[in-house]
């Protein structure tokens, strides 16, 4: 078995998402490993699922892209019930939706949470609450004005 067997990724249009997953299940990929996403900037949100064949000891990755605003995919919970939590987390973290999901509540974020923390435009506010140890310059013991990576200048974000 080569690395390619583990890393083989099939890209499918979002319209074919459910059908492609269903085909994998039919070909012996019976174990739903995980589903998540990444922010692919202008290309949209890339959703990835990894399905495993227990019998053949073989994994398959399935990937599709949906729009950043209002992106929707059909749920895979009718194929694997265990996809429910993964889809809830992916929905809240990336601001996309899964149609037909039996329980589409946020999984980890508290009620009324504003924003989608794993999108690139989301500012890590906790990185402002704690003083950054790297803000000091060499030879100094008092924090300078250096901002931690990923935190935009004060006054340009938040309320």
């Amino acid at each position, binding site marked *: 078995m080569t690395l390619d067997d583990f890393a083989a990724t099939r890209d499918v249009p979002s319209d074919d998402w459910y059908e492609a997953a269903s085909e994998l299940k039919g070909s012996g990929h019976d174990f739903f490993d995980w589903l998540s996403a990444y922010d692919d900037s202008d290309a949209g949100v890339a959703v990835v699922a990894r399905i495993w064949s227990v019998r053949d000891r073989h994994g398959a990755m399935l990937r599709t892209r949906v729009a950043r605003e209002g992106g929707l995919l059909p749920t895979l919970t009718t194929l694997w019930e265990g996809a429910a939590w993964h889809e809830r987390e992916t929905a809240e973290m990336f601001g996309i939706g899964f149609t037909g999901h039996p329980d589409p509540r946020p999984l980890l974020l508290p009620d009324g949470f504003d924003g989608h923390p794993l999108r690139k435009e989301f500012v890590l506010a906790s990185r402002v609450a*704690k003083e950054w*140890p*790297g803000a*000091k*310059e*060499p030879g*100094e*013991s008092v924090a300078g004005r250096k901002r931690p990576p990923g935190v935009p200048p004060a006054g340009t974000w938040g309320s």
Partner: protein
Amino acid sequence: MTALPDRSRGVIALREESCTSCMVCARECPDWCIYIDSHKETEPATGEGARPKTRHVLDRFAIDYALCMYCGICIEVCPWDALFWSPEYDHAAGDVLGLTHERETLVTWMRSVPSVD
């Protein structure tokens, strides 16, 4: 301690004489768990035409192992080879504050760092 490969990754050791307080490790640390204080000292010029030299003197170097996720990025990025993996792992503490290893503790881990020669 049970027999482990001597390059096992247990705890991070500081070779303080190599540290120039450059802050690279503290800035690269994803957990923000490295704390460094330093000050500048000026050495008078030696000889004719020479200028006074400024150097950084390390005052504090601490790693908070309650936050550290042992990723080893600090060791990787250190331009001066001042940080090393030590195979020692038995540094549990009864108090969370005891997991912040100050310089005095961090240098003791050098005793188990395999020789680079």
